[in-house]
């Protein structure tokens, strides 16, 4: 009775999941959030993807026939050798060959009449009056994916009406993107705000179609990480027919846009899009076919992760995502078997997981009885407590400021914070690079010697006495300025509301009190906080970064001098500048993952540890719960198209749901009985009153 899904879906090969916030954008040129990638990743197919099982993360072809080898050119256009210095590289050229025979999902944008004319590209008021949602179109069509579609999408990044978040960044690399943006801007102004611009008519200097299945991208300089961008939906194909179809004002007025109804070649297509309630992905009947990988990393075979090797993907026919804004109903539905997998909210953590004496997480008895599995993985993210290096007290390159930062780094007990505020879901940071990314060092060799000692086979935070000593050497013995005698007062710039934030502020204050430093919490709203960061007027703050791609460059660039945030809007939030670090960064970013590169990364990490622009930090740990009917899954934190590998046992799920959700009626009958009996005295009183019988 409490089943939220239609009876007709019982026993079917459908995966049930939830989402907490409606996606803002499903247009691959605009979408950049992970909650949007949950959908776009299954629909759009860029040329490359991450191997599902291999670690470290490895790119493999998706629609491409093979991985490209970049060609390097000097300023005169002469071809360079791969070994030539990066400074000589003026341009890099990537040539992508896509596989023939890949077809788009059925879509009205492709529907044609017998003469080959598009049926729905010039809709009149009469036709529009019958349309409310995309599925109201009765005819659909499809066509083969071509190189043109990839080039079309790259041009869309520069379209004035599409605010692509990566346009500014990509315009620094893709040859001619900036010029194309200016041309399109002028063309749009000339043609009118609502007019459709057919991007095929506007050439993009650095991107060309070589033949039906081949295209080239020319970028400025050497940027080896560019290949990772080609595995993101930003570089997925968009057919010009879709752009033309969705540009019709009559459809835009009905919210039928590419931003809302994606069109792709992937294993799934979005058939229901009511992001206020439910979004449904269904198997794309035109999917080109792909098989489950037959190789992975050591241990995958034993873990049963290769049991499906060679089997056709996707396994699931349909995926139903329901909007769940609150944790409580989402969690209860998971326990009732109405969601196949779940994260764990803080409120539910104690019911679901026990942390053993050794710090390992294991499921509670209730979860074990239900056959639920726990899968954990450290996210490719880093969250840190940073210092504004422009600040006269905590910033700067002086020995005194450096020791002050190091002292605070020891005092702020990140392990305690993880235990209290994250239920142990995280690991304390030893360097900006999280586990799973090249450059991360395990074990004793990987610890931050300025903050930790290696004791009994694990890192142990240095004692507070060491921090006090450093503080004294910094000129603040016992938390007072040695020259003036005034107490040291620092400011923590933050944004947060509610009891949890308050507890966090109190905890942070206590960490500084260990050194007798007075911490002032400058709590403000999100916008003011962002303004402070952009102006560089903050002092101490918390910040974070989720990896765009699995390369150390994507983390170490957070401390690269030219990327400072204050005044330039870059991602270096601490405004840290160190010429030696910058020099090593420029060398490292263009290298392959070799021992030489690792050695440079180690040097860079050592500089960061010594200068301590980041006091402390952590890499979050993801806890996922899976029901027994959900086949073993391997977390892949870089790939966003992993739904095709998911598999369930619908028969087992149906049995379990039935066993767990038998309705209980007797309390309702009891309640009705109590109410009836309870009214009897009132009825008697009424009758007495009516009859005028005195009490």
């Amino acid at each position: 009775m409490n089943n939220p899904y239609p009876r007709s879906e019982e026993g079917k090969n459908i995966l049930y999941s939830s989402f907490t916030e409606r996606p803002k954008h499903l247009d691959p040129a605009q979408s950049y959030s992970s909650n949007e990638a949950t959908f776009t990743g299954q629909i759009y197919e860029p040329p490359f993807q991450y191997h599902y099982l291999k670690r470290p993360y490895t790119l493999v072809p998706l629609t491409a026939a093979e991985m490209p080898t970049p060609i390097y050119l000097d300023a005169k256009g002469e071809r360079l050798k791969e070994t030539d210095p990066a400074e000589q590289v003026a341009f890099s050229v990537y040539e992508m060959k896509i596989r023939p025979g890949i077809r788009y999902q059925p879509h009205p944008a492709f529907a044609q009449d017998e003469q080959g004319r598009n049926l729905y590209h010039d809709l009149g008021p009469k036709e529009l009056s019958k349309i409310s949602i995309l599925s109201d179109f009765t005819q659909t069509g499809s066509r083969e994916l071509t190189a043109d579609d990839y080039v079309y999408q790259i041009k869309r990044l520069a379209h004035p009406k599409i605010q692509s978040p990566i346009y500014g960044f990509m315009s620094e690399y893709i040859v001619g993107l900036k010029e194309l943006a200016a041309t399109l801007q002028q063309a749009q102004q000339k043609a009118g705000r609502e007019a459709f611009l057919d991007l095929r008519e506007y050439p993009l200097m650095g991107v060309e179609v070589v033949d039906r299945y081949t295209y080239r991208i020319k970028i400025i300089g050497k940027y080896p990480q560019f290949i990772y961008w080609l595995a993101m939906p930003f570089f997925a194909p968009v057919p010009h027919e879709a752009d033309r179809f969705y540009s019709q004002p009559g459809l835009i007025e009905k919210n039928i846009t590419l931003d809302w109804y994606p069109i792709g070649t992937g294993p799934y297509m979005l058939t229901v899009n009511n992001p206020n309630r439910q979004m449904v992905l269904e198997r794309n009947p035109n999917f080109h076919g792909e098989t489950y990988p037959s190789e992975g990393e050591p241990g995958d075979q034993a873990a049963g992760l290769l049991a499906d090797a060679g089997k056709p993907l996707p396994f699931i026919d349909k995926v139903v995502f329901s909007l769940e804004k609150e944790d409580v109903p989402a969690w209860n539905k998971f326990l009732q078997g109405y969601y196949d997998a779940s994260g764990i909210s803080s409120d539910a953590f104690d019911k679901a997981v026990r942390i053993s004496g050794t710090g390992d997480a294991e499921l509670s008895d209730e979860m074990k009885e239900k056959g639920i599995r726990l899968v954990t993985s450290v996210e490719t993210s880093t969250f840190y407590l940073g210092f504004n290096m422009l600040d006269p007290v905590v910033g700067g390159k002086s020995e005194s400021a450096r020791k002050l930062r190091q002292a605070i780094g020891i005092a702020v007990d990140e392990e305690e914070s993880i235990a209290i505020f994250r239920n142990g879901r995280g690991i304390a940071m030893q360097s900006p690079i999280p586990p799973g990314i090249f450059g991360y060092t395990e074990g004793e060799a990987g610890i931050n010697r300025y903050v930790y000692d290696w004791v009994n086979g694990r890192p142990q935070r240095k004692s507070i006495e060491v921090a006090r000593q450093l503080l004294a050497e910094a000129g603040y013995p016992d938390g007072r300025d040695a020259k003036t005698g005034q107490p040291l007062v620092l400011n923590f710039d933050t944004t947060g509301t509610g009891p949890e934030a308050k507890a966090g502020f109190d905890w942070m204050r206590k960490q500084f009190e260990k050194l007798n430093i007075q911490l002032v919490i400058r709590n403000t709203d999100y916008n003011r906080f962002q303004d402070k960061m952009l102006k560089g007027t903050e002092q101490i703050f918390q910040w974070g970064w989720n990896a765009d791609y699995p390369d150390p460059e994507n983390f170490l660039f957070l401390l690269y001098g030219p990327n400072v945030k204050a005044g330039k809007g870059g991602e270096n939030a601490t405004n840290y500048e160190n010429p030696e670090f910058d020099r090593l960064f420029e060398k490292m970013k263009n290298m392959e993952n070799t021992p030489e590169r690792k050695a440079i990364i180690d040097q860079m990490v050592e500089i960061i540890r010594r200068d301590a622009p980041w006091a402390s930090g952590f890499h979050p740990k993801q806890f996922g719960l899976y029901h027994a009917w959900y086949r073993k899954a391997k977390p892949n934190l870089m790939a966003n198209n992993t739904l095709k590998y998911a598999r369930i046992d619908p028969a087992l799920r149906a049995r379990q749901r039935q066993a767990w959700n038998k309705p209980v009626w007797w309390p309702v009958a009891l309640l009705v009985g109590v109410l009836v009996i309870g009214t009897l005295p009132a009825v008697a009183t009424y009758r007495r009153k009516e009859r005028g019988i005195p009490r």
Partner: protein
Amino acid sequence: MTGYLIRRILYAIPILIGVNLLTFVLFFVVNTPDNMARMHLGMKRVNQEAIDKWKAEHGYDKPLLFNPAAEGAGKFTQTIFFEKSVKLFVFDFGRADDGREIGVDIRQRMWPSLAIAVPALIVGLLIDITLAMLVAFFRATYIDYWAVIVAVAMMSISSLFYIIGGQFLFSKVLRLVPISGYGSGLTAIKFIILPVVIGLVAGIGSGLRWYRTIFLEEIGKEYVRTARAKGLSELRVLFGHVLRNALIPILTGVVVLIPLLFLGSLLTESFFGIPGLGSYTIDAINSQDFAIVRAMVFLGSVLYIIGLILTDISYTIADPRVRLS
């Protein structure tokens, strides 16, 4: 009455302009167009060029209220305030900052809100009035005493408790209804039963006390004594005479609410996953979508004004002595 209504509608125009101006000023005191752009573009890799492009595309690249660079009336019309506000008066809400047509969203989302709010209002009114009438009938007895105590206790409990408690009891323990979700057509019924029941139970305390007070005041009047003296049964006195005469204060509280039912309930919709208008405004505030905030505040003001006018009209129906002039 026609003249009265026209006058009331004309009075509404400056009120709506004032509400719109106030919303605009309050919103932009805490959010700049740059903040809005950053919120929509995300924080990663966004440069000033992208922000400027977003503002130009969404019409936030002009001065807020006064444009000194423009000529003549353009000083006021070529501003964000004028360009974003003037169309509201013909109910053209325009597009949200994420590009969606607000009017379409409102039309879609008002039905789930109504599906919960209308039964909750009607059934709630019937239950509250009936219970209040019975308690008034048993005035000064132990039933009245206990009813008031229970009502006060029920009023004191947070609506969040009713929601979470109701979900726990009926969905988790008794497994009688889905804990959250929504369906289209008749399938929606199983999803709205629980929120409606919880809405009714949560409202009984305050409703009972409010209507009891009204009825007790009415019961003390002379026409009630006359009715009783004529030998009418107490039920007839209460439901035939007291209720009719108590309609004016009841209508004052109820009719004004009717148009606002469209706007839904934030908490209920959020916890039950109902895709109504209740959470639409809060979502918009969280995502700094001024277009939706402005549209919803404007719509709320219009509906409130309509509610007040309907209340006036309902007086003339409930009490023929009332004349609108």
